[in-house]
């Protein structure tokens, strides 16, 4: 795992901090160390800022922790206050280091690049002054007081062949190979006649100034002296592990990649960061976890182990053989009898699974740490990695925050979380689970953030900060992309942008099929900002306002005045063109505080939408009053959700008639949502009571296939391309023909592939996110009614969704919108 310690540089002066970082960066070109600067109040003003420091820490935070280096005075105070401002999890991983800023930074970057832990990086940073001290304490070349005072047991000379001499990377290898050997080893630059320095200190080694062709001399005492010198010899003979040819990125290396579901179009390249900090094995809070029966705790342990095994197995399929080997160890650890027996024994003693596992894993890792063999010592990291992974499954899920810049890596998002994403911070989203038709995906699309979904649990294995490239149009995800792949992705983004400009220019013209049929393209918009976007992107009307936004997260329902004002704001933002207000559509799955509802076993089959409105007519009546008031000022349509019987629709209309009174607002149109198969099949019965029927394909699909969108195990069943859904759309259009217009307002409408299909089925209005309006209009212009009818007829006869897609793919290409 290449998770390295993050470093923050705190200084009074921003130019000074930047220069120090540049200096340190020179020592380890291309090293994967994240360094953030929190310095100065701006480019010129000297000063330090605790808030900026805490943000810098968060930006480089990762499982390996963060080292903060600072200059003097208030920098120290601000760094301490910054630590206080951090959230608990991050705070535990942050170390404020008293090392001198420049020397400490160089040492810290070099050491962190070698994958050292936080403690070691800090120690080396503090040691950063040592080289200079020894240099200035006497004439160059004069040996400092030797640590090895007795006659060395072994002495040898080696030529240093790497092109850049004994720089950080080869020096780090030297330290690694010598670590754990029972010997005291010192090295000097024999060519320049430098002082002897301890071979285990990276900072001291790099101050020897060993260049290519220089000779180093090593001396050692102790039982392992001979072994130590042999190891240095073999390392020197192997060019200190450096490539012998020109240092190039090995061409043709394999980039692991995955094909996921395209959840939100666009290209994103960047480091992944997790919403949830990984739990720590040494978390003191662990003991507080409540105990269940030992049997249940044993079962929880087994489940967690199995879940991690599943994740790792999934990941291995994407890796090269060498990389996969690492995870063989992890898999083996999950079956390790010593680990498991001891954990089970602790659970048997009455401890909860989480602390029992954490304690055992921690002790095992510590034991590995103490082993002298470097290979075995490295296993400590493996034990900790697996340990924390299992621990995460044993602990209750923690509340997630989404702050860091880059690509957000999550299991799935709740709609609330998706709604708070900021495209300036979150450049892309990778969801291990989830589906493109889930609420989260819909919200992410509306924000224009590229996303892929359903990638698989393996992505949780990716170390924090791993760079990935994703294409939310195709569903491609490439891990650690090389230069070529990056360029390819950037080119795609550029092409998309250019096509988008053309499409946008034409968005304000009506969408007419090749044979002259006008198809209305409306936008879903529930805020003035969205309405403004809808207008900018050429929407013919706002075809769906989800009025729930006004009703959620408050203690009392909005009154008539407040609703009127909010709806008018929307209409204003849309330039006074028609808006379609859907009455409150909630149910037992998202109950309102002021509208208590009994707990239902099946809220999706319970009291929701219009069913709720008719049972609690006060709220619906108030809403209709507000809508009618607005309708007297601007063109408005009202739409009732979740209609399944004629009785419901008539009751709703009676309520509306009462509110309207004798003088109906000019231009008030009335519609219903068709989300229930029963409504689709009874379109002919319902249509006389409505001006339009709007098919909500998301819910219609879910009810037709009896597959809940939020349930990953069945989400794939809920495919809007299923022939059954197409037949219901057709039935709606047939039933409504000549009486009411039919619109489609689910996510299906925004799928360019579905456009000819829907037009062919008889749909004359499509309702999509503002962002999709231009693309959908273009797709309509490429469609011919005659061809589309044939296509729809063939599609309806298909046995399954996959063959429907095949039919769509094989149709003669009629436009540029087919990927």
């Amino acid at each position: 795992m290449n998770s390295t310690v993050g470093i923050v540089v705190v200084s009074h002066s921003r130019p000074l901090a930047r220069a120090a970082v540049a200096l340190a960066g020179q020592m380890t070109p291309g090293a994967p160390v994240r360094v953030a600067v929190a310095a100065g109040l701006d480019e010129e003003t000297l000063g330090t800022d605790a808030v900026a420091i805490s943000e810098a820490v968060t930006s480089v935070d990762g499982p390996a922790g963060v080292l903060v280096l600072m200059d003097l005075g208030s920098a120290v105070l601000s760094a301490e206050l910054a630590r206080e401002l951090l959230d608990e999890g991050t705070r535990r991983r942050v170390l404020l280091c008293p090392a001198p800023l420049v020397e400490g930074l160089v040492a810290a970057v070099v050491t962190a690049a070698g994958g050292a832990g936080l403690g070691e990086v800090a120690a080396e940073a503090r040691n950063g002054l040592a080289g200079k001290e020894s240099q200035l304490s006497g004439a160059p070349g004069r040996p400092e007081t030797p640590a090895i005072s007795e006659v060395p047991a072994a002495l040898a000379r080696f030529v240093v062949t790497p092109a850049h001499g004994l720089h950080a990377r080869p020096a780090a290898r030297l330290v690694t190979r010598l670590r754990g050997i029972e010997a005291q080893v010192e090295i000097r630059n024999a060519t320049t006649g430098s002082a002897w320095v301890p071979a285990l200190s990276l900072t001291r080694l790099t101050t020897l100034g060993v260049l290519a062709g220089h000779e180093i001399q090593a001396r050692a005492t102790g039982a392992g002296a001979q072994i130590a010198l042999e190891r240095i010899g073999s390392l020197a003979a192997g060019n200190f592990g450096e490539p012998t040819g020109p240092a190039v990125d090995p061409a043709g290396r394999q980039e692991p990649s995955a094909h996921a579901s395209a959840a939100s179009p666009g290209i994103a390249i960047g480091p992944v960061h997790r919403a949830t900090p990984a739990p720590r094995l040494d978390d003191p809070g662990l003991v507080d976890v409540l105990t269940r029966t030992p049997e249940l705790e044993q079962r929880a342990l087994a489940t967690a182990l199995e879940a991690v095994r599943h994740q790792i197995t999934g990941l291995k399929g994407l890796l090269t053989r060498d990389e996969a080997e690492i995870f063989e160890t992890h898999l083996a650890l999950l079956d390790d009898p010593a680990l498991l027996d001891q954990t089970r024994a602790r659970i048997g003693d009455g401890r909860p699974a989480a602390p029992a596992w954490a304690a055992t894993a921690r002790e095992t890792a510590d034991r590995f740490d103490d082993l002298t063999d470097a290979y075995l010592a490295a296993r400590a990291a493996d034990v900790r990695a697996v340990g924390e992974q299992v621990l995460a499954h044993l602990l209750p899920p923690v509340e997630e925050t989404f702050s860091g810049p880059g690509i957000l890596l999550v299991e799935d998002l709740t709609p609330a979380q998706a709604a708070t994403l900021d495209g300036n911070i979150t450049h892309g989203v990778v969801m291990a689970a989830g589906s493109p038709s889930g609420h989260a995906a819909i919200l992410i699309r509306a924000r224009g953030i590229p996303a892929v979904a359903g990638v698989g649990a393996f992505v949780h294995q990716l170390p924090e900060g791993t760079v990935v490239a994703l294409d939310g149009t195709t569903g491609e995800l490439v891990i650690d992309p090389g230069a070529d792949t990056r360029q390819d992705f950037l080119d795609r983004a550029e092409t998309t942008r250019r096509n988008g400009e053309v499409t946008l220019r034409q968005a304000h013209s009506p969408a007419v099929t090749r044979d002259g049929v006008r198809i209305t393209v409306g936008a879903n918009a529930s805020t003035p900002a969205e309405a403004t976007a809808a207008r900018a992107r050429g929407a013919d009307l706002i075809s769906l306002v989800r009025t729930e936004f006004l009703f959620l997260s408050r203690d009392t329902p909005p009154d008539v005045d407040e609703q009127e004002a909010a709806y008018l704001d929307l209409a204003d933002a849309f330039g006074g063109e028609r808006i379609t207000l859907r009455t409150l559509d909630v149910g037992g799955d998202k109950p309102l505080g002021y509208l208590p509802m009994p707990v239902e076993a099946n809220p999706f089959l319970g009291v929701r939408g219009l069913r709720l409105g008719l049972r609690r007519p006060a709220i619906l009546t108030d809403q209709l009053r507000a809508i009618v008031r607005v309708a007297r000022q601007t063109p408005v349509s009202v739409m009732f959700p979740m209609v399944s019987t004629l009785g419901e629709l008539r009751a709703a209309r009676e309520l509306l008639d009462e509110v309207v009174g004798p003088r109906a607002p000019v231009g008030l149109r009335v519609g219903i949502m068709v989300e229930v198969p029963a409504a689709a099949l009874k379109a002919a019965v319902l249509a006389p009571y409505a001006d339009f029927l709007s098919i909500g394909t998301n819910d219609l699909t879910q009810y037709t296939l009896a597959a809940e969108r939020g349930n990953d195990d069945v989400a794939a069943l809920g495919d809007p391309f299923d022939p059954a859904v197409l037949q219901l759309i057709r039935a709606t259009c047939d039933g409504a023909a000549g009486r009411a217009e039919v619109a489609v307002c689910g996510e299906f409408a925004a799928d360019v592939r579905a456009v000819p299909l829907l037009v062919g089925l008889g749909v004359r209005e499509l309702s999509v996110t503002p962002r999709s309006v231009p693309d959908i209009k273009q797709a309509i212009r490429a469609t011919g009614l005659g061809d589309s009818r044939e296509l729809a007829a063939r599609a309806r006869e298909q046995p399954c969704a996959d063959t429907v897609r095949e039919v769509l793919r094989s149709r003669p290409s009629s436009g540029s919108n087919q990927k």
Partner: protein
Amino acid sequence: MSEIVDVTTLRSWLIRFAGDVEEHAAQLTELDSAIGDADHGSNLTRGLKAMVSVLADGTTPPSIGPMLKQSGMALVSSVGGASGPLYGTFFLRMATSAGECDALGPDSLAAAFRAGLEGVLARGQAVAGDKTMLDALIPAVETLEAALNEGRPFGEALKASADAAEAGRDATTPMLARKGRASYLGERSVGHQDPGATSTALLFRAAANTMIDGEDNQ
């Protein structure tokens, strides 16, 4: 006389403090130029201006803890010098101590000051007599606590506290600086009044002037 300090009064206190510091900015900077880096007046003025603009834009939380926290954060982000984290810590710890409430009684206010003082002690790692803001802050808080314990009226206690802060400020003149930039001067720091203690005395005088009814007539 009211013994309750509500959120409006606390805002007035902070705004008053900002005004007083700006008024004395030249003096503070002059004091700092004698023994420091001549930026205390300008730094603190800049930070307090940022704080006041937050307080004035009407979005400050209506409850005391969050209001003080927002004020402290604004200060921290714009002071630049050591007074940023020190005053920032003072207000943030006060915020934690006060919590989400609409008003503080005398004892809660004293407890909040005490929490602020403890924060500054921990942050600066200085002690009384080091020639720092603590030389005004410690007597101010201790005098307030003692006066309230003796059952003296709130207004009188606040005045005593402000007086104690000023006495503490004056007492820094002969001291030898042991912390901060001034400590680099060693013996040469003797004979100058400490700028940090000077601004702290302003803080407590502003408290007495705003928290006692009818005192703030200016």
